[in-house]
């Protein structure tokens, strides 16, 4: 079973880079295993879907824009997340990931059924900085632990 772990975000936009930080630490703690690939990307929608092609499952780590305590962690299935776009564009430049996956599947691409999302609540994502806010820094070890546990699960909940 091929698994892709992706840190999403922009590493120079403050807390938006938390997905990368978590993914980098996950990579260092994983024993070498050709069936588990760890990557860091600043993409969404169609571009992200293109990276998921060929994997059996995927774990996405991203900043979560929410009015909650900084650093709180949410784990959810992509299928359970609301497709806010209602099949419409999700940004000025792309489709939602759910929409893109449906498009990929309709074109015959092999895409993971199991896509888990680990979101870390952030607020400060419009300021150029390579540093995370202290509460977000503190959330990183716990997020790493969650991702490693997800990676180890042989069969993910559907």
């Amino acid at each position: 079973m091929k698994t892709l772990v992706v840190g999403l975000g922009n590493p120079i936009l403050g807390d938006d880079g938390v997905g990368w930080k978590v993914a980098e630490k996950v990579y260092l703690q994983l024993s070498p295993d050709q069936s588990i690939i760890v990557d860091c990307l600043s993409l969404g929608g169609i571009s992200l879907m293109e990276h998921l092609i060929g994997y059996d499952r995927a774990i996405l780590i991203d900043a979560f824009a929410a009015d909650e305590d900084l650093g709180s962690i949410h784990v959810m299935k992509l299928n359970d997340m609301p497709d806010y776009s209602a099949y419409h564009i999700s940004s000025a430049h792309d489709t939602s990931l759910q929409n893109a996956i449906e498009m990929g599947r309709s074109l015959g691409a092999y895409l993971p059924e199991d896509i888990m999302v680990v979101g870390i609540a952030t607020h400060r994502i419009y300021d150029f900085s390579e540093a995370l806010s202290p509460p977000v820094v503190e959330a990183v070890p716990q997020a790493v632990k969650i991702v490693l546990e997800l990676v180890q699960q042989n069969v993910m909940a559907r």
Partner: protein
Amino acid sequence: MQRISIDPITRLEGHGKIEIFLDEQGNVANTYFQIPELRGFERFVVGRPIEEMPLITNRICGVCPEAHHMAASKAADAVYKVDPPRAAKMLRELLYSAFYCTDHTTHFYALGGPDFVMGPDAPVAERNILGVIHKVGLEIGGKVIQMRKYGHTVVEMIGGRKVHPCTSIPGGMTKGITEEQRQEIETMGRWAIEFAQFSLKLFNDIVLGNKGYVDLILGDVYTHHTYYMGMVDENNKVNFYDGKVRVVDPNGKEFVKYAPQDYAEHIAEHVEPWTYLKFPYLKKVGWKGFVDGIDSGVYMATPLSRLNASDGMATPLAQEQYEKFYATLGGKPVHQRLATHWARLIELLYAAERWVELVTDPEITSANIHTKPTQIPTEGIGIVEAPRGTLTHHYWTDERGVVTKANLIVGTTNNYAPIQMSTHKAATSLIKNGNVTEGLLNMVEMAFRAYDPCFGCATHSLPGQMPLEITIRDVDGNPVEVLKQFC
């Protein structure tokens, strides 16, 4: 007074929303379009070596990192006063042409196209790329993905990485391409030409063959008479990578043609108290407000304006389409903003042809791809045409090449005033006597979608959506109705 608020990004106060104020009769009095600004870039780059700018600035944006990579590389060349060898410039432009094919393809099929293929009144659930695939056929989706794949492959081959290229440095490139790679890139480029022609035929059949769509494009709602900006080569033909910036007036007459280093003589920025972002305008015409006409310094920098600002396309097939474009739409310049979608497809064809032109140049596999900088670094400006408009990078350094100051004018910023005007006009045409039509959201969206604006680069954080919210407020400012959709 009623107040209508369209809020694309609700999660941070003061960022990215449209507010429409109605007068006592319920008609539009004012419209304000606020774009979020990413803060602190200058502070972020000060103290870093200029060589890092092509790598760091391509992280500004996940949509067009290649454009920032190229503008920063050209600015870094200028800082070191070094002229890269011809092969290095061609490699950069080849990478950039492939990127353009990817970017323009995505915009047409995923964003702009659905309004025309499905129709502007189609349900939201169908007005997207999935709807296009279902209506026109699976083959279309396969071609779109293939075009994107080829574009990514060329960027990776030349740029060293699939998404954020890293091979342009002051004085040229760190690596070239082999003859084997050249042949592969040529094959992909020839396919891209066919794909671009296919896309133009699709546009011709579906859009131009439909009188309703042609009337929509030519209608007054989406028309503004402004100045137009675009980069041109020595023959005044469109060029994305290099040349001079040419501006034509609303009658199509050349107003100015300037070299990158002179941009500050021609571009000034107007400040409004209600938005973080500044409004660039033509300094020698002056700021007269958000108004059309030859006396207003408002200019536009988009695919449509690049065609308007040029005397043609430098490649034969794109030139044919350029001539057809102006013959169909009534001559130069074309002021109808929705024609930008057609102009974008003509640029797609040009980019594909240029791709093949560059990769078949005998010098493209040359090993001479870097000129070693020997001068003391000082200050430099680099300009390229990003898909969304003219992109200017300006850096000042100390004698060690450490950045002391930076200034960027990005594609969307050029178009801030025209987008504001188009949004206002769309709202004005739709809201009469307090009645907000159901089509308002999409008609307003269509007004700014033609410009392909880039709101910011953090929008991929979860939930990764850009909700549009219209809040209609009564005379006391209290909300009486909220319309919401995600776009």
